[in-house]
């Protein structure tokens, strides 16, 4: 059995579609409320894939993802490094990516700032995958993909003196001022993937705005599912 845990609560709001994505990919899927984890702590080692879904944890106050990161570190006491070293996979989408960044999954010199426009942005974007990153379990066989973005703080920036990371995924046209068009990052193990676009927002063809052009494919799978299927393929069995 391969199991996926989808975190929810405290303002996370993409748990249902993230769970649907994991189910479609083959995972035994469980949506777990953060408050349950506080009252009944669970060992991360019991899951194959941990998903930090999109949303507005803690209302995005004090910087998106930052309070949730504190909660994961201090209240849940989870150590993601240990988890992935033991064979686990972590996917952080949008607010989940922001949380991973705040947890230091990609080092300390990187941050997600407000979009250059200062405005929230919902639109479909074209993305390219860095061929060197296709070794990551998440990105196998994906060269490019179209996905929706829906965020106000998606601009990847690096502190003075920090060498920029190699982006796993970049925008063809950068919508938010992100450094070198970075849309997603992969940690050095390849097992933690964070991205601003929403792969769980493209599980079926009908979600793509262009799907109405050709009659018929409304029920077909959308490209976003590939990322979850890839994760399923590489996830450890429990």
């Amino acid at each position, binding site marked *: 059995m391969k199991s996926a845990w989808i975190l*929810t*609560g*405290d*303002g996370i*709001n*993409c748990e*249902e*579609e993230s769970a*649907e994505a994991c189910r479609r990919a083959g995972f035994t899927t469980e949506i777990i*409320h953060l*408050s*349950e984890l506080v*009252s009944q702590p669970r060992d991360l080692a019991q899951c194959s894939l941990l998903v930090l879904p*999109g*949303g*507005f944890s*803690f*209302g*995005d*106050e*004090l*910087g998106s993802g*930052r*309070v949730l990161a*504190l*909660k994961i570190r*201090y*209240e849940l006491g989870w150590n993601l490094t240990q988890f992935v070293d033991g064979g686990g996979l972590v996917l952080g989408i949008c607010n989940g990516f922001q949380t991973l960044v705040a947890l230091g999954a990609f080092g300390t*010199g*990187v*941050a997600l*700032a*407000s*979009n*250059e426009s*200062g*405005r*929230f*942005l*919902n*639109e*479909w974007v074209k993305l390219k995958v860095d061929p060197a990153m296709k070794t990551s379990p998440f990105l196998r066989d994906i060269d490019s993909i179209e996905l*929706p973005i*829906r965020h*106000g703080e998606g601009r990847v*920036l690096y*502190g003075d003196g*920090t060498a920029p990371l190699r982006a796993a995924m970049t925008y063809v046209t950068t919508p938010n001022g992100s450094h070198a068009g970075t849309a997603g990052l992969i940690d050095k193990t390849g097992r933690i993937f964070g991205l601003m676009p*929403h792969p*769980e*927002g493209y*599980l079926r063809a*009908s*979600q793509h*705005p262009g799907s*109405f*052009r050709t009659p*018929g494919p*409304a*029920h077909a799978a959308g490209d976003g599912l590939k990322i979850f299927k890839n994760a399923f393929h590489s996830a450890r069995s429990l």
Partner: protein
Amino acid sequence: MSPAVKPNSFLAERFELFPWSDDLDVHARRIHSDFLRENPDVKPADFKIETAKAYVLFHSGIDDVQEIGEEILLNPVLDRATAPSGWRPSSENASRVIERRYRPGMTDNSARAFEEALGIRLSVPRLNPAFTAHRMDLFRIRAGNQKLLDRIEATLSHPLLHVARTLEEKSWSDRKDLERLRELFPEENKSAAKILDYHAPTFEIRELDSATLEKASKDHLWALSLKEMQTVQAHFAKTGRNPTLGEMEVIAQTWSEHCKHKIFRGTIHFEGPESIPDGYPKIEIPKTTPGLFRTTIKAVTDACPKPWLLSVFSDNAGILAFTPQDAVCIKVETHNSPSAIDPFAGAITGIGGVHRDIIGTGFGAKPLFNLDVFCVAPARFDTDRPDGIFPPSRILEGIRAGVEAGGNPAGIPTIAGALVFDKSYLGKPLVFCGSGGVLPREIELHPLVRCEKKEILSGDRIVIVGGRVGRDGIHGATFSSQALDTSDAFLLNSSVVQLGDPFTQKRALDFILKARDQGLFRTLTDNGAGGLSSSIGELATLSNGAKLDLTNAPLKAMDLRPEEILISESQERMSLAVPPECLERFLSLANSMRTEATDMGEFIDSGFFEVVYRGETVAKLDLEFLHEGCPNLEIRAVWNPKALARLPAPVKNLHSDGDSIRTRLLKLLGSENIRSKASLIRQYDHEVQGGSLVKPETQINSHRSPNQSGAVLLRPDSEVAAVIGVGILPEYSRYDAYTMAQASLDEAIRNVLCSGAEYGTSDSVLALLDNFCWPDPLTNRDYAADLVRAGYGLRDAALALELPFVSGKDSMKNDFRGQQNGKAVKISVLPTVLVTALGRIPDLARARTSEFKNTGETVYLLGPAAFTLVGSQFERIGLHHDEARRLPLPNWPLAKKLYGWLGSPASQVLRSCADISEGGLLTAISEGLFAYELGFTFDSAFSEAESPSFFYGEGFHTFIVSLEADSNQAVTESWTELGIPWKRLGMTTTTPKLIVGNTVIKASDLEGAWR
């Protein structure tokens, strides 16, 4: 470290966050561009602005507080903790530093998050913390002169929300001192205590004369009329005692126009002219209407029984069965008065309020989508407006931002809406916030099992869930029940302005859905207008009584008086009836999910709404008097239709090509009511929850075509969608409100049909909502006549199409009185009806969009095509024509046939479908070209010589549809057989040009004008 009451010896720490660079200071950039937009005389380089944030923490001793605070607050990549040297104020240069805090008692979400983060970091319980935090904003402005500095400074704070001060050299260097911080936050000094010694004050009503009664109603902000005050007086004369102040407050809230809809229930006497002038619909309005709601809106629903109608008008929102498992509910609210005073706060509380309506529908629903409609004045009135009101562009941006802040963090997609510009909205903007939710039709574990049931048993506990009660939002219901007056005492009463907290609400929603699924409560409703006095007062009718105990009410402001607790409209609260045997599990689940829940008494069957505080009776009101005792209104309405004259000849010679198709079409596409709303749409999440099907616009790379409505699946794994369309055409009210209402209804239905809604069989789920926003019909008989005509207009159209209304709301005091250039002005909104249609797309493969898909599609005009120019965008933007002027007339029997075909599976053959609405035929065709960069060529049967009403006219029931070239004949034959008028217009082409006769217009020019 857990002192329950903060000692005065508290310590204070101030943390500051300065962006490392201007590039990171998006807040400053926003203020800069907003100021320039509203002040065309100022140039970008004339001033510079920088922002920073500060947090102040009062605590009783936390080790390493500086380090821990910075760990939580400071992102070292983006901000630094020490002020750059330039921030130090100096009297010599033309710069200013301003420090701004929220007024005491305002919701401060960042500060609450800081407190919670600190609790997490220090492992201390969240509630009753030994520290309190405050958030502040700092601004540094530089400009060439003091006058400009003053003007900028004035826009940085709002006296009803903020306290701002300019920092001098000394106050800058002292700003971290404990003494200074205590001065800045006086609420930290006084130990506000709960009222322990309470005796319910009485209101000596029995001896008062008419003048004193009227004055008392005004002084207490009750908004009760003399007749109503006298009814209360008579009631208490019979009872043999004087009312308490608490009872007067409860009556005032319950009888407010906002809560009671007295105008819609009143008796209306209608007078019309001897004969109806040409150009108007020939319909008869009854001389007496005994309750407009009952006679028009509800009468339709009574006449159209549908197997899928589960609940109408009785609950927070109408409930419709969508699948054997799922029901959908929908509600649209208005939040006009609060949005006029502070558009951001008004809009965020508006959207938050309608979400609570949905959460509180049936046995509890999960919000599934939002819809928003804003009516505002055009930006050209930014510099031409009465005193004391905001520039319309700031109002629009504030409303937009408020709905964003309430909608996006809640995780609810905003899928439909409209934006209407008209100068009549200068005094009071209209903000319609709607939401729909999904709920399972049955939950076996739930005490009521079926979703639409509302029951309370005597003995059930009264439990309040969510946010705490504060001084915010007191008298909101009575406030919005009168005209907006900038000199009004209401404006000085800050408590009518509130800020929302979508995060607390989201947590409460998560909890309520879980408690619902476990069957831990019997029924629930939201706390909206009138606060507990309304929510418990209404729920009490289900058990025939309630005993509400305010003693343990969770408070934000400890010294609130019981009367204030009773009517405070503090946000994010729900009221529930919990069976006593479930209470312990209910409270324990709430606690584990970090939602505050408080047992506040019980439902009883005494026939009274009783309120107590520390054993003392605050109010004890006969429920029947409270809910049925309000006297009936008698309203006089007089209709004076004016003859529709031809347009006068243009005053000056137009440019030589002034009446060319190109000029006219580009002007129309670029006009404020037609041009792209992409900048708004993109700032709302319209895809969250994974059910996105038809989006507000079809975006293909950088090109966009608008869709007519929005559709979402009920769940990520569902194949059934809800589709939402709106119709709002207030311009017709300048001529005839009957036509306005009918056209709005037709528009809403056409919009959902364009996206694939089903219609035509008894199983087709399609329902209507009505929202009336009116200038006061009690003081103006013309407006009263418009109201009656609009009601009958909706009735006649809905009856003809056999479509029920399931929910509605009205707002009746949309007038503004103030001063401009030393003269008194009154601005009343156009009588405005918003019709919302909620339909079903039974299979997602039946969804469709409006843009043309490919080259070689054949394009048809489908429907009666009886267009006219009165009230059209063409006339509104000042374009000239010399056709006879008449209002568009509907043909409902024909519409029913056409809509039946469009709502059937047969219409899946269509490649695209758009209705012809604002801007007319050429606008509709143009918009369909953008997404795929296509062109369109009219058949040779058409030339530039077609009439303006053909190219630009507007009217009922007509669409532009396209078909694959090879499927045409069978389809057109079926239209003919069904008696549906159609006309072939032309073909889409690869060359991106619009061609009619010898006129060739590049599609990119059309798109450029539109965007």
